[in-house]
């Protein structure tokens, strides 16, 4: 963390106080954004600095540079800057940020917005040199900040070109104060104050006007003019010469200024121009002199564009424009001089432990050997601090074949590529690292220390390989690499151990060994909590819960989800949970569980939350899961059109993205069910064929749900023999793994089949067996699906239970009765108020506040048809207005 970036540049001596501009800036204290956009040398920094110090406004200043294109770097400085005014601000956010497994930058920013609410006074957040920000990620964060900051926080952007932010919206909301070059340029009056009052150069009025014309009020030009006028007798003559010259004014003036410097100073200026920031020891090393401190102080005194970066006068930099002009002249001297200077600077920075500066100097002159050496040394700590974008940027500047020479660099580079979804790009780098390390290990000349550290490195590389292969779905490879990894990782490497056990867990799960998988994931959870790996913690909770659901252990699954969300809350991460899509998955799961327990209102609320969260997400897996759950829950609430529409939405997503087997299985099975329930047996049959399900196919775990619903289709088609066979096959598949949910379904179907074939006694018995399976976990919803067949059977079940002839607990039967009652009531209401599909669709759009024409357009019908629908809706619901219609419909859960 460079404190120099947070230091407010002093306004300098001889500053001309621009009270007119101050007034405009003052009005910015009631707006969100103050934008100062003007080319270099228009005094933006000086103006703001002066305004802040004159008015004593609490301000956090950030001088941006290229490294701030890494969101981790940018946010880190924003937080630290505000901490200079409010010590306690953003502590937890900073901790989360500086970790290799940080949550998304969006969620950290939400966390910060929340904390900003605790600040009561007006404060400024100044972002200087904003034109250097090109990263879309950072621009998005700034946009987000602008949209959500509380009214007492004001952002100031100083830039050379208008930023790619939606400034026009702020403008129309009167949340913007703007200053541009025409505002900032010096008037003749300002020039007079500077030259005559402050610098006592005695210009005549004509001189002042000439200067105004020639420089167009450009402050940098005026300042350089003032310097070149020092000690001259004929000021007017100088100005006339200046006017008459057609050369680029800065070329002309720089020449004049350099002419009057001593040779020492001149050399100093030219050679140090390549340094982004300078200290006396650095300059001494680069120039091979020993009086840099004196020179720097002289330059500051003489106003030669040198800006102190701290209060101790240790670090300085040149005004950017001045540096550019000097650099130009330096380049004229000799080609190799620039290279020599950068190399010396690189060496000094390296010796003084300022590695990132050393690296930047090496990269500018394309000294790749040096760059790789330095980057290899700092990659690990950069990675640990979450500076992933920075690492990617650096590696992009270096030819691949050279990057491959450094195993450490390859490890971290690959890891970042894998976690940002660029798995294929990562593979060759990991492979190269692995080869090099293995050679070192078997080399007899390698010392014991070298072998040890390389073994450790090999372990970590194996973790990366294992993780990578989790995506490629090659469980054997994952386990292989995991074995290698575990050889040399010690208990202290909890981060790495967390990842390797996670990979093992996922591999075992995909092989079908749920028990081993769960154990491995539990292991990983322990290590992940130790290393605060929030990402893995939530992923694991999700996986474990998911598999528990698949095995019907709903109570355990629910507990896992609930525990995790509590963990997040207790550790102050609730804001993150709301913004992170990984939690969407957990909320989705909870909604499914609540649905199974027939707590349909809670289920609906949760799935709606999850649905909204998933909409912003690029993560398709979550969106798919939410859509499946949403469809399920709507079906359970007897909203068949709604359920179908969500499935249709899912189809669209699945067209674009490859879905997992489980998703396809669930979707297929569900679609069959819904088609059967809407009476579309033919269509269901066709769908089964399209999905390549067949009576003679061998059924595996991967298609289980599809076949379960195929059974239901066979029952609907009265193909009882075929149904019986399929049920037996499914039963043999499910029994060993004790998949309760499947067993419950199958027993219910036996009951249905028995009822349909007139065997009432067996029907009741099968129902009781189903209930016995379901009781432990309160699996209720399944019994509500075919109620029209089973409702009379349940009467007998109640009698049997009351007579004590079954192990089903009374609580469970009571819950069942209540759930059935509720469903009957709901269906009764819906039948009385039965809206047609079109009427239903129209009503939903009315609830979204669309006017009739918009509804007509959306449904591709005429506006008259819409009005007819509306009339019918009013009749059926017994209302007389749109609001009341929507209100009633909501009460009846029709929409």
């Amino acid at each position, binding site marked *: 963390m460079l404190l120099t970036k947070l230091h407010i540049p002093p306004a300098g001596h001889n500053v001309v106080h621009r009270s007119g501009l101050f007034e405009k800036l003052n009005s910015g204290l009631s707006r969100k954004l103050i934008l100062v956009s003007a*080319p270099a040398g228009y005094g933006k920094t000086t103006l703001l600095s002066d305004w802040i110090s004159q008015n004593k406004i609490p301000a956090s200043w950030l001088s941006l540079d290229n490294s701030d294109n890494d969101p981790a770097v940018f946010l880190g400085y924003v937080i630290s800057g505000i901490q200079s005014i409010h010590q306690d601000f953003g502590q937890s956010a900073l901790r989360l940020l500086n970790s290799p497994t940080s949550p998304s930058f969006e969620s950290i920013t939400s966390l910060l917005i929340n904390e900003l609410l605790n600040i009561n006074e007006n404060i400024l957040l100044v972002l200087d040199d904003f034109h250097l920000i090109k990263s879309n990620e950072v621009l998005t964060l700034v946009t987000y900040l602008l949209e959500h900051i509380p009214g007492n926080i004001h952002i100031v952007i100083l830039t*050379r*070109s208008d930023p790619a932010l939606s400034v026009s919206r702020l403008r129309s909301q009167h949340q913007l104060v703007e200053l541009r070059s025409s505002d900032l340029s010096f008037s003749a009056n300002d020039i007079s104050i500077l030259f005559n009052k402050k610098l006592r150069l005695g210009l005549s009025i004509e001189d002042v006007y000439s200067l105004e014309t020639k420089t167009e009020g450009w402050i940098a030009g005026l300042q350089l003019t003032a310097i070149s006028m020092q000690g001259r007798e004929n000021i007017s003559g100088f100005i006339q010469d200046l006017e008459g010259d*057609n050369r*680029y*004014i800065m*070329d002309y003036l720089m020449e004049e200024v350099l002419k009057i410097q001593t040779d020492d100073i001149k050399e100093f200026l030219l050679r140090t121009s390549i340094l982004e920031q300078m200290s006396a020891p650095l300059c001494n090393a680069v120039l091979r002199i020993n009086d840099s401190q004196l020179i720097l102080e002289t330059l500051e005194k003489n106003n030669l564009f040198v800006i102190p970066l701290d209060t101790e006068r240790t670090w300085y930099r040149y005004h950017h424009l001045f540096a550019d002009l000097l650099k*130009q002249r330096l*380049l004229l001297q000799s080609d190799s001089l620039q290279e020599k200077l950068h190399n010396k600077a690189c060496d000094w920075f390296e010796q003084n432990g300022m590695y990132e500066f050393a690296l930047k100097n090496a990269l500018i002159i394309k000294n790749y050997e040096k760059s790789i050496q330095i980057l290899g040394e700092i990659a690990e700590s950069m990675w640990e601090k979450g500076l992933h974008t920075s690492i990617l940027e650096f590696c992009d500047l270096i030819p691949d074949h050279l990057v491959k020479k450094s195993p450490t660099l390859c490890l971290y580079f690959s890891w970042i590529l894998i976690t940002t979804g660029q798995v294929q790009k990562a593979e060759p780098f990991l492979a190269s690292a692995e080869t090099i390390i293995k050679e070192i290990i078997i080399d007899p000349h390698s010392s014991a220390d070298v072998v040890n550290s390389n073994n450790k490195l090999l372990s970590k590389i194996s973790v990366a390989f294992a993780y990578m292969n989790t995506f490629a779905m090659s469980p054997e490879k994952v386990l292989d690499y995991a074995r290698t990894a575990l050889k040399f990782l010690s208990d202290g490497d909890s981060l790495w151990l967390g990842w390797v056990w996670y990979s093992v867990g996922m591999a075992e799960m995909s092989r079908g060994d749920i028990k081993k998988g769960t154990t491995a994931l539990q292991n990983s959870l322990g290590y992940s909590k130790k290393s605060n790996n929030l990402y893995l913690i939530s992923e694991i909770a999700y996986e474990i819960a998911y598999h528990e659901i698949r095995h019907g252990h709903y109570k355990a699954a629910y507990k896992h989800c609930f525990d995790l969300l509590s963990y997040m809350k207790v550790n102050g991460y609730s804001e993150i949970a709301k913004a992170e899509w990984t939690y969407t998955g957990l909320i989705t799961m909870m909604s499914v569980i609540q649905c199974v327990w027939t707590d349909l209102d809670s289920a609906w609320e949760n799935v709606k939350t999850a649905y909204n969260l998933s909409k912003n997400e690029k993560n398709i897996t979550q969106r798919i899961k939410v859509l499946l759950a949403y469809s399920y829950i709507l079906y359970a609430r007897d909203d068949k059109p709604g359920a179908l529409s969500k499935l249709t939405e899912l189809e669209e997503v699945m067209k674009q993205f490859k879905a997992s087997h489980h998703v396809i299985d669930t979707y297929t099975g569900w679609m069959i069910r819904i088609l059967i329930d809407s009476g579309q047996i033919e269509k269901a049959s066709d769908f089964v064929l399209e999905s390549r399900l067949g009576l003679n196919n061998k059924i595996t775990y991967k298609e289980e749900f599809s076949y379960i619903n195929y059974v239901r289709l066979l029952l609907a088609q009265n193909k009882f023999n075929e149904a019986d066979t399929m049920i037996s096959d499914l039963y043999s598949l499910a029994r060993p793994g004790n998949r309760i949910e499947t067993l419950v379904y199958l027993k219910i179907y036996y009951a249905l089949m028995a009822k349909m074939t007139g065997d009432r006694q067996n029907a009741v018995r099968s129902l009781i067996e189903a209930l016995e399976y379901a009781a432990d976990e309160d699996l209720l919803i399944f019994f509500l699906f075919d109620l029209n067949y089973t409702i009379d059977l349940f009467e007998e079940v109640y009698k049997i239970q009351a007579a004590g002839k079954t192990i089903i607990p009374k609580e469970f039967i009571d819950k069942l009765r209540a759930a059935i009652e509720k469903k009957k009531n709901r269906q009764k209401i819906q039948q009385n108020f039965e809206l047609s599909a079109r009427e239903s669709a129209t009503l939903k759009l009315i609830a979204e506040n669309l006017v009739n024409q918009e509804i007509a357009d959306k449904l591709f019908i005429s506006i008259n048809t819409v009005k007819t629908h509306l009339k019918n809706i009013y009749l059926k619901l017994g209302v007389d207005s749109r609001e009341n219609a929507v209100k009633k419909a909501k009460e009846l859960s029709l929409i």
Partner: protein
Amino acid sequence: MIFFIWVSPTFVESLINWNMKGKIRIVIQGHLDKHWKNGFESMKISYAAGNTILSGNIKDEAHLHGILNFIRDLNLNLVSVNPEEGNASQT
């Protein structure tokens, strides 16, 4: 009369319609010494009517933006930016 044309992104985008590669002619007000050549990668400097002309081949969008940004940073007055006559890739 001196005027300063600010190059907004949309202006640049319209330039991009000429296919973004190929010869370009940038006119800057005033006289810019030849030694600035190395600040403008692969461009030649010539003079006409008291103005400076940068001509050369544009590799891609980033190249053009770099040149325009540099001109902006020096606070030079940009007079015009046009594809050079005889640019074969003009559409």
